[in-house]
C-alpha cells in the first residue's frame, strides 16, 4: 500500500531482530518461538481436542497477520499470484502442485519426528545450546542442500 519497504531487509537487520524477539518471548513467557508447535496446537484447536495452548493458536494467526502487514501494507501490495517463480519456470503447474504438497507433507512429518522445525530447533533450540537441536539443524541443512543438488542434476541444471 505505502511502499515503505521497497527492498528486502538485509540479514544484519532481520537476524538480530529475530534474536531479539526470540529472547523476549523467553523473558516474558519462558517459551520457545516454534512454528510447528503452533501448527500442532492450531490443528488440535480446529479438531476440538482438549488441552490446547490457546496463545499458540493466536501466534499462528499472528504470523500470517505480520506477513500481511509487511507485504501488503508497508510494501506496494503484492498481487495475488502463484509464487514459486523459479520452480514454475522449470515445471508446469500440474507438476508443481503435487511437488509442493508432497514436500510440505514430508517436512511436516519430519518436523513432528524431530520435535521441531527451522524455528523451534534451528533458532530457539540452538540458542539454548541444546545438542539435540544442533544435531537436527545440521541434519536438515545437509539433506536440504543434497536434495537441492540432486534436483539440479535431475533437471539438467534448470532448477
Amino acid at each position, binding site marked *: 500500500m505505502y511502499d515503505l519497504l521497497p527492498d528486502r531487509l538485509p540479514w544484519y537487520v532481520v537476524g538480530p531482530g529475530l534474536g531479539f524477539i526470540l529472547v523476549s518471548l523467553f523473558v516474558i513467557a519462558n517459551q520457545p518461538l516454534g512454528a510447528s508447535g503452533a501448527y500442532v496446537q492450531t490443528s488440535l484447536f480446529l479438531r476440538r481436542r482438549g488441552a490446547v495452548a490457546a496463545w499458540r493458536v493466536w501466534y499462528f494467526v499472528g504470523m500470517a*497477520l505480520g506477513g500481511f502487514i509487511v507485504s501488503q501494507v508497508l510494501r506496494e501490495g503484492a498481487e495475488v499470484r502463484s509464487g514459486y517463480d523459479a520452480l514454475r519456470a522449470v515445471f508446469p503447474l500440474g507438476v508443481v502442485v503435487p511437488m509442493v504438497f*508432497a514436500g510440505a507433507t514430508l517436512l*511436516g512429518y519430519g518436523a513432528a519426528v*524431530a520435535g521441531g522445525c527451522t524455528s*523451534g530447533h534451528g533458532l530457539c533450540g540452538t540458542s539454548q545450546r541444546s545438542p539435540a537441536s544442533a544435531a537436527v539443524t*545440521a541434519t536438515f541443512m545437509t539433506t536440504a542442500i543434497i536434495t537441492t543438488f540432486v534436483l539440479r542434476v535431475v533437471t539438467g541444471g534448470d532448477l
Partner: protein
Amino acid sequence: MKLNLIGLLFGALFGGLLAGAELHEYDTIHAMLRLDEAHVFLIMASAIACSAPVLWMLERRGFTTPFGGEFALSRSMPERHHWQGGALFGIGWAVAGTCPAPALVMVSSGAMLGLVAIPGIFLGLHLRERQTRTDQHVGDGEHRDLVSVRR
C-alpha cells in the same frame, strides 16, 4: 488472555520479519540451498549469535518470568528420532522451498501455492500424531510443559 495477545504480537513480529527478508519466497530459500546466496545463512547465524549469549547470561542470573514461571532453558542429547526427523525435514524443505512459518506468510503475501503447502504440513504433522498416539513431540524444538502456561 494477556498471553493470547502476546502470542498474536510475537507471531506478527516474527511473520513481519520473515516477510521483510522475503524468507517466504521459494526463490529465496532455493537460492540459499543452491548455495548461490548467503542471505538466509547469515540471518540464522546472526540470530543465534545475538540470542545465545543473552540467554546464557539470563540463565546464570535466574529470575521469574511474568507468564511462564522460573526462567529455564532446556537441553537434550540427540536421539535417533532427531537425526531421522531432521533428515526428512530437510528433504521436504528443499522440495517445497518453505517451512511452517514462511508458508503462512507466503499466503498472506498473495502467493497462492502457499495454500497447497499449509495443508501438506498439517497432514505431515497429523500422520506422525496418528503413528505415535502421543503429544510428546509438540514441535518447539526444546519444548515446555504447555499446560503450565495455560491461563
